[in-house]
């Protein structure tokens, strides 16, 4: 008997908009101009937010913050392919994904300022809080997708992960579940080449991360993750496949983390500037701007207005964030159980007494009323 090929990877890579802003029109993408401009605006706005957040952190006005500089396309575009009632589960580097879904930036700031009140998504959305232990949200997204399949109304669940997280068992179990049960799930791998200090090639000897999908019986595709058109094409097709019952997909967006892992990290300790500079030349926003200008969809006046409006809107969000009164410590005890057990009732009463004592002694600021359900 001859030895045959049992399987062959079919992983494709899609590039449509070159770093120089030249679009390959031979690959069709159904992305109307108004939608394209909306994506561009959001990318510019979230970059401004990113820059300001780093400054706020350096000024001591924000806690540790994970930068998304360079990943604006892979953040904004996938989440924009969803309907509000679809499920979104980003990573902790997910301010862009939430922003694309309409989350107010004041809440992102509040969260990264260490305040639980920052977990506040638009009421009409099915957004889930990200997981800090990387990858632990991936099987939950499978469960959300499973629920959508059972409901049979065409809903999908999308989860983001990074190149490092693709090494975790969670990724394996999530893809195993989704493919075996043909669940409407889309996994966005933001391959930004660095898991803190560990480069992409140390995570896997595979040529792509997308090709892992085929092993599970899922669909896998790699795209230029700084290319709005390529991401939009691959993700919107993956979402459609999921909606129509054809099962899960993995879309690997090859991008680059231009900044540090977080404000607590110094990337200069483990990577050279030449690599970073090379990737600066592939900037997702710059190339889209060139394209838009060439197509007469954008010009210097519009850019100036966008920058001005975005800065003003952001300033309002920062003011709103800083205007939040300090949280009432008693809020910790709310929403732990549908009805609080005796030990939480006791402990909350104890903290309340301590707070009352402190208010007199240390000029503790007047606290807002406690929020949330208790007991």
């Amino acid at each position, binding site marked *: 008997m001859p030895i045959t090929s049992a399987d062959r990877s079919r992983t494709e890579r899609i590039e449509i908009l070159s770093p120089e802003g030249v679009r390959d029109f031979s690959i069709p993408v159904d992305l109307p101009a108004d939608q394209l401009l909306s994506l561009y605006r959001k990318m510019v706005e979230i970059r401004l937010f990113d820059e300001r957040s780093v400054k706020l952190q350096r000024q001591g006005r924000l806690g540790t913050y994970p930068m998304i500089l360079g990943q604006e396309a892979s953040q904004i575009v996938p989440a924009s392919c969803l309907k509000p009632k679809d499920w979104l589960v980003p990573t902790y580097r997910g301010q862009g994904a939430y922003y694309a879904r309409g989350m107010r930036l004041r809440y992102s700031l509040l969260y990264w300022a260490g305040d639980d009140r920052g977990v506040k998504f638009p009421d009409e959305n099915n957004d889930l809080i990200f997981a800090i*232990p990387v990858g632990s949200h991936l099987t939950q997204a499978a469960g959300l997708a*499973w629920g959508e399949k059972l409901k049979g109304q065409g809903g999908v669940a999308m989860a983001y992960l990074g190149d490092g997280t693709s090494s975790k068992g969670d990724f394996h179990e999530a893809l195993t579940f989704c493919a075996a049960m043909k669940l409407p799930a889309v996994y966005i791998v933001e391959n930004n080449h660095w898991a803190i200090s560990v480069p992409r090639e140390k995570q896997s000897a595979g040529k792509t991360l997308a090709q892992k999908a085929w092993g599970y019986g899922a669909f896998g595709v790699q795209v230029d993750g700084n290319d709005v058109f390529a991401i939009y094409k691959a993700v919107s097709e993956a979402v459609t496949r999921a909606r129509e019952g054809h099962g899960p997909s993995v879309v690997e967006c090859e991008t680059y983390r231009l900044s540090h892992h977080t404000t607590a990290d110094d990337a200069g300790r483990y990577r050279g500037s030449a690599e970073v500079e090379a990737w600066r030349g592939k900037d997702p926003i710059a190339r889209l701007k060139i394209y838009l200008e060439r197509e007469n969809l954008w010009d210097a006046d519009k850019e100036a207005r966008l920058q001005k409006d975005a800065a003003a809107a952001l300033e309002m969000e920062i003011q709103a964030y800083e205007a939040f009164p300090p949280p009432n410590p008693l809020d910790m005890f709310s*929403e*732990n*159980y549908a009805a609080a057990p005796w030990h939480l009732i006791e402990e909350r009463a104890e903290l309340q007494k301590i707070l009352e004592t402190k208010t007199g002694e240390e000029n503790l600021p007047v606290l807002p009323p406690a929020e949330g359900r208790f007991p």
Partner: protein
Amino acid sequence: MPELNLVQAVNQALHQAMEEDRRVLVLGEDVGLNGGVFRATEGLQQKFGAERVVDTPLAEIGIIGSSIGLAINGFRPVCEIQFDGFLPSGMDQILCHMGRMRNRTRGRHTVPMVLRCPHGGLIHAPEHHSESPEAYVCHTPGIKVVCPSTPADAKGLLIAAVRDPDPVVFFEPKLLYRAAKGEVPQEPYETPIGKARQARVGSDVTLISWGAMAHTCLKAADMLDKEGVSAEVLDLRTLTPLDLDAILASVQKTGRALIAHEAPNMGSWAAEVSALISERALLSLKAPVRRVGSWDIRMPLFRLEKHYIPDAERVLRAAREILAF
């Protein structure tokens, strides 16, 4: 009233929970056609279909994680982890997410799910099939932990767990699956979560336990009776939240308490119960509170398990010591 064993009671509870609420799903390894390795889910798939009774891939993170997702998305999953020794594979989901989601999302997303898992030793099982991991879970906020010792409580607590708006980890003493028999009402009913059961009334010493060890304590109480000692046996049934009132009422009456359990003593749930008694009933105590647990070593292979897990003799010895204090 029909007599059932504990696994039949669990099975009946699952049937009735699935009948009364279409959102209830059963998922896990071998729970479908095979009816579970202990037959706890027997007949469910035939009755409710493969869409609601699901043989999942062999993946504990996937089972627990997807159950969390299903629960957030409006379903009432009852997942099974096949053995207590396989629970640690999924602990990340239990420790970091299952009990935290309600609080992390300020009440927006809740996780009304049940995680069923066999518990304990003494059935001559292979390695990693006889563990007592309850303390790991009890230590985690946002979760309720249950471990019944009678068929009637197994049914009532499981129905209560499925109806509960918060995640419940439901430990089933596998020694009792067939050994514990008792009358079980046919209709669906709830045994309240958070309430202990006075398994035997006594006045000289309180033997506190849960799961299979409750039966060991009853046996020890019989032995004490022959020595003229009146022992009270408290079957906690729920480990979190603890029935503090029942514990304190009994200890204030008897003045002496021991907590018998199958896990190693150090850092155990028995240690927590002991600490609560010491903090809140010190002046009622006539002797120090004792923990009677397994030795602080790993669960041995089964030839030695009866020397590892406390038997009635060890409970009796400890009781005698505190009575003589």
